[in-house]
């Protein structure tokens, strides 16, 4: 690709936001058109990117990941390769205060300090088989959100602008290949989200917004320290001082961190944590909060239950994926050894999220909260798959990230439709609505089935691969996790049947006619409207297509999955085969 497509993808929504600023706020029609167009163009571009990416036969044998401090890593190949790289220097420092330094080590060695190593950031963008799909998903979800955004929304203009800005942030996170740039987008994306949360939603939004931001940023700040830490640890060990992700990934082959030191507790001796482990944990904390993993999820139910549907479509749909994305892109590649060391912990958290989320969803009375906890449960699968640290688990995780984005967005749209019509979110208030809104019931049924992992719908593929991957690591975890599938069936049916089946019930309405009247006088119709149908159609279509024919996604995610597995295997203390349920002397991996 001769032209910088990634930069363009980033710029389009930005320019769109600028454009919207000049549109008078009263012209809601114009605003919606502009918004839809911009998001559609972004989607188109990301599809171009996708096609172009798939056109690359297979990632060319690892490209040399450049040089840092004049010391080249030509000897090392980064196990993970990126396409469409664009790199623009951002900040380059030669480091020290020139005439300050000699004065400081004036003759005596007591204060003989070297100046700071040069700090280099760059606008370094690039994609791999993991991020292209998420970019496409993000673009799609923002378009969907733009479609469901009602023209009666208060402060429509502000909403649209903030939405586009958050799109820039999200795509930036997915494309950045420089740790500082990554953190930059990671945090900057929170700003528009914060305003979206405190500006629109139910009465608890203010509390939810501050809770969300403070919680996530508190976690991310540790990651900031860890980013600086990686820079210095890698630098001191390899002489390569850089924030450039491919270079760092390559450099990790040099970094030696053996769990040599141990401390003993209760008579057992445990390996003491070394710097790498702490850095891993700092990254993991930030991502675990973002995903979120139990028990770091307390911001989620409030945020999800108080937000407006268009906001939730992309907030729940894509923002939560950034955490999982970070786990794969950074934890696995930058801390291979720590990844193996903490594998049980993270898998445990994944399983915990699956079961905890499912149980909590089972007990909720607020339909939005049911979906919120369902999301926690589903993302537990993703993390479980990631930390299976094998091809199947990672492929499953990647595809499941896409699936979850599609499913959760659709679920929130559906739930939002019920809320809009009957002005209640209590499951107990509603029932038997299939009579009043048969089409909605049908669509909702498909979405709910996708949510509970119905075969030939998308989630099944991901969950199947994830469980297969986890099963190779520890059958026990996989079996326990599969209980989550059963519970998912339970709570999804509970919600679906509660809303659409049983005797007809709606607040202030007894028989079918009155229900219809109620909805009609509130929003003009009872069953699905054209716009809602347009918004849901692509999502439902994706559910079916991915479920019936997932091969394309896997075909192009598998290279990246394999690469990440290779990257993380650099740090494997034990041969992977020892963990699989195969007879000794034979390894699952490596059998082509």
């Amino acid at each position, binding site marked *: 690709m001769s032209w910088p497509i990634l930069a363009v993808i980033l710029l389009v929504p930005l320019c769109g936001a600028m454009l919207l600023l000049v549109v008078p706020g009263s012209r809601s029609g114009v605003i919606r058109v502009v918004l839809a167009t911009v998001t559609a163009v972004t989607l188109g571009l990301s599809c171009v990117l996708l096609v172009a990416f798939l056109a690359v036969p*297979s*990632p060319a*044998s690892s490209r040399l990941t450049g040089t840092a401090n004049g010391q080249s890593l030509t000897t090392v190949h980064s196990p993970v*390769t990126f396409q469409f790289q664009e790199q623009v220097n951002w900040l380059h420092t030669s480091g020290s205060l020139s005439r300050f330094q000699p004065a400081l080590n004036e003759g005596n060695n007591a204060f003989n300090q070297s100046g700071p190593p040069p700090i280099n950031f760059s606008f370094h963008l690039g994609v791999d088989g993991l991020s292209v799909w998420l970019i496409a998903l993000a673009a799609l979800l923002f378009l969907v959100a733009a479609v469901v955004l009602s023209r009666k929304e208060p402060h429509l203009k502000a909403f649209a602008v903030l939405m586009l800005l958050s799109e820039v942030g999200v795509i930036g996170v997915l494309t950045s290949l420089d740790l500082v740039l990554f953190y930059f987008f990671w945090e900057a994306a929170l700003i528009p989200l914060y305003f979206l949360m405190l500006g629109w939603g139910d009465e608890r939004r203010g509390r939810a917004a501050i*809770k969300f931001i403070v*919680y996530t940023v508190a976690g991310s700040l540790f990651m900031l320290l860890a980013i600086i830490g990686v820079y210095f640890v890698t630098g001191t060990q390899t002489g390569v001082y850089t924030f450039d992700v491919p270079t760092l990934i390559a450099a990790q082959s040099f970094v030696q961190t053996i769990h040599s030191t141990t401390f003993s507790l209760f008579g057992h001796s445990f390996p003491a944590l070394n710097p790498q482990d702490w850095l891993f944990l700092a990254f993991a904390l930030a991502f675990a909060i973002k995903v979120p993993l*139990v*028990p770091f*999820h*307390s911001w989620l*139910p409030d945020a999800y239950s108080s937000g407006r549907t268009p906001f939730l479509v992309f907030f729940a749909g894509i923002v939560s994926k950034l955490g999982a994305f970070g786990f794969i892109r950074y934890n696995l590649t930058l801390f291979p050894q720590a990844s193996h060391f903490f594998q049980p912990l993270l898998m445990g958290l994944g399983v915990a999220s699956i079961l*905890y989320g499912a*149980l*909590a969803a*089972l*007990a909720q009375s607020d339909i939005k909260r049911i979906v919120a906890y369902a999301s926690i449960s589903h993302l537990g699968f993703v993390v479980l798959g990631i930390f299976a640290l094998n*091809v*199947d688990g990672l*492929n499953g995780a990647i595809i499941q990230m896409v699936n979850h984005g599609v499913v959760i967005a659709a679920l929130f749209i559906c739930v939002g439709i019920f809320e809009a019509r009957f002005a209640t979110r209590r499951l107990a208030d509603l029932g*038997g609505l299939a*009579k009043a809104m048969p089409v909605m019931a049908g669509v909702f049924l498909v979405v709910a089935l996708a949510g509970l992992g*119905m*075969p*030939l719908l998308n989630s099944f*593929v991901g969950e*199947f*691969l994830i*469980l*297969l991957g986890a099963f*190779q690591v520890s059958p026990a975890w*996989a*079996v326990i996790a*599969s209980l989550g599938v*059963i*519970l998912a*069936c*339970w709570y999804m049916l*509970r919600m679906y*049947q509660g809303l659409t*089946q*049983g*005797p*007809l019930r709606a607040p202030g309405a007894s028989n079918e006619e009155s229900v219809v009247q109620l909805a009609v006088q509130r929003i003009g119709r009872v069953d699905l409207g054209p716009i809602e149908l347009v918004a849901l159609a692509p999502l439902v279509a994706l559910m079916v297509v991915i479920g019936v*024919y*997932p*091969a394309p996604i896997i075909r192009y995610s*598998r*290279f990246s*999955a394999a*690469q990440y597995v290779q990257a993380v295997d650099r740090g494997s203390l034990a041969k992977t085969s020892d963990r*699989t*349920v*195969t*007879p000794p002397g*034979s390894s*699952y*991996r*490596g*059998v*082509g």
Partner: protein
Amino acid sequence: MNPTLILVLSAVILGLPTAGFLVNALTLGRLPRRLVAWMGPGVVLAAFAATVVTLISMLSRPATDRGITIVFWHWLNASVASGSGVSAQAGFNANFSVRIDPLSVLMMLVITGIGGLIHVYSVGYMAHDRGFNRFFAYMNLFITSMLLLVMSNTLVFLIIGWAMVAFASYALIAFWYDRPSAVVAGRKAFVTQVIGDVGLVLGAFLIFLNLRGPAGNLLHTVNMQTIFANVGPGAHFHNGLGAYGAGLVTAIGILLFLGAAAKSAQWPLHTWLPDAMEGPTPVSALIHAATMVTAGVYLVARFHPIYQQAPVAAAVVACVGIGTALMAGIIGCTQYDIKRVIAYSTMSQIGLMIFAVGIGAYSAGMFQFFTHACFKALLFLAAGNVIHSLHDDQDVRLMGGLSRRMKWTYWSFAIGALALSGIPIFAGFFSKEELLGNGLALGPAVPWLWVIGVSVNVLTSFYIFRVVWLAFRGEPRSEHAERAHEAPPLMLIPVMILAGLATVVGFLNIDFAGFAPVTVFSAFLQPVLGSPHSQASAAIAGLALLAGVVLSLLGVGLVWAVYERGLIARDLISKRAAWLYRLSFNKFYWDEIYDVALVRPTVALATTVRGLIEPNLIDGAVTGIREVVGTLADDFRTFQTGYLKDYALVFFFFAVVGLVVLGLRLS
């Protein structure tokens, strides 16, 4: 067989019901009823025709190559070849391929044939229902899923079909969704099925991860033919699953059977079947008699190469089967809901089939499945006629004397009853005798299993004829029963066709240890299932035969004695052995047990999570920190008194501290 022909045929067979479903679903029930009335049954019958063609083209081949595998598309392949920047890594891979061989064709025949008849019947039965189109959409979807299940050649698509069947059955059971009981029954069925699916999936994992080829390399395949080729006895045995020790094979066998038990309503996953009677009667006929519940039998038969390597698992299967057969039989004797009685009889009969495949009498099990499909569908549809004419009364206590008003239905039902209880010349007779004969022949290891199996005959004929007497003979016991009328032809014809089948199909396989052996059926299945291992000796077989017939007649006699002549008091059991009666009447309390042991704890746990852990632990931690900060702030600000003296004092104090610390080099 001509591959392209088979490809086209199987595409048609799978495609037509799918198309029927899609058209019905995507038009959002806006199609005219007449069209649906033709289309719904039409696609299924067309599929049946295609299946017949397949059968013919198959029969035109020597028995040795009647199996063919057809690949439709690559589902997914996560393996990476080396040289693409990474070293080669094997990932999960599977394609969508179907297997056409005698076993699958047999299943397809039953599914499309009897399924088609039931569709036709439903046109009449559901004629006045609001959700006519929706009903046929679900029915077609069910047929598709069932076909997918039996035709699939890869474990994954077997599982997919398995789960889709579960969904379709859910949708049909909860078809009348404004009845809370139906809704609950549907959910129960679905969740139970999913439990079974999980077992199946885990079993598939074990096979996929551990199956080894001739060279001892891991195969990593979900292709069932490859699997069967490598698990069997013979040269590769030591490379097969066996290499990992019997434990693994047993585990696989039991996990697979978990799925089978869920589908076939075997203990311990049986409780959903009786509740499933909430669905419309044709549904019960289709799902709970002819097709779905027999999927378990098919699964075990299909995977017999594995069960042959796992005697323990097979024994478990057999015991569970026979146990369920006995339990369901006992329960059936005391139920009053006509459909529930038939449901329990289904459970019991399938128990026998499971027992058969468990002991290795595969073709006998399949034959029992075949005949059972005919007469059990017959019974359900006939019962459907009764219910329909009684305006949805299902309680036999409210019936009586229907034989006069519904002559045809009465006789059809009677034939079904005779076939069910294995009275000679009717289909059930042959299949059951063969089954029990085999049971005895393979039995010696476990003779008492055979004893139980035979004694079930008494129960069978007792409860079914009890229904016949209560419902059709005697005097009407309700005004509905008095005003009952014969069903319309559209509903009568399928019933009579089935009655005919129930009478004749038994002759396909006459196998009484040598007298006049007709082995069309078992010969047909032989290439897939192999031949029955040991032929029972004439003496034993004769004994078995005699015992079976005598016991069945004994059952009928009992009914006659109790309900016709009143020689025995009806409440004899409920008086003399009240515990037994209560146990039977309350279905052995399984629902209650599960409620207490599983459902309530889970719900309690969930409410704890929501009410206790979530607000106090998870949220409490966060808000707690926030409050700590707030309190600290309030504490700290008290320093800021506003009095200059205090400021100067604190300033001075800290200055002195600094002085001391630095001056005395304490730091």
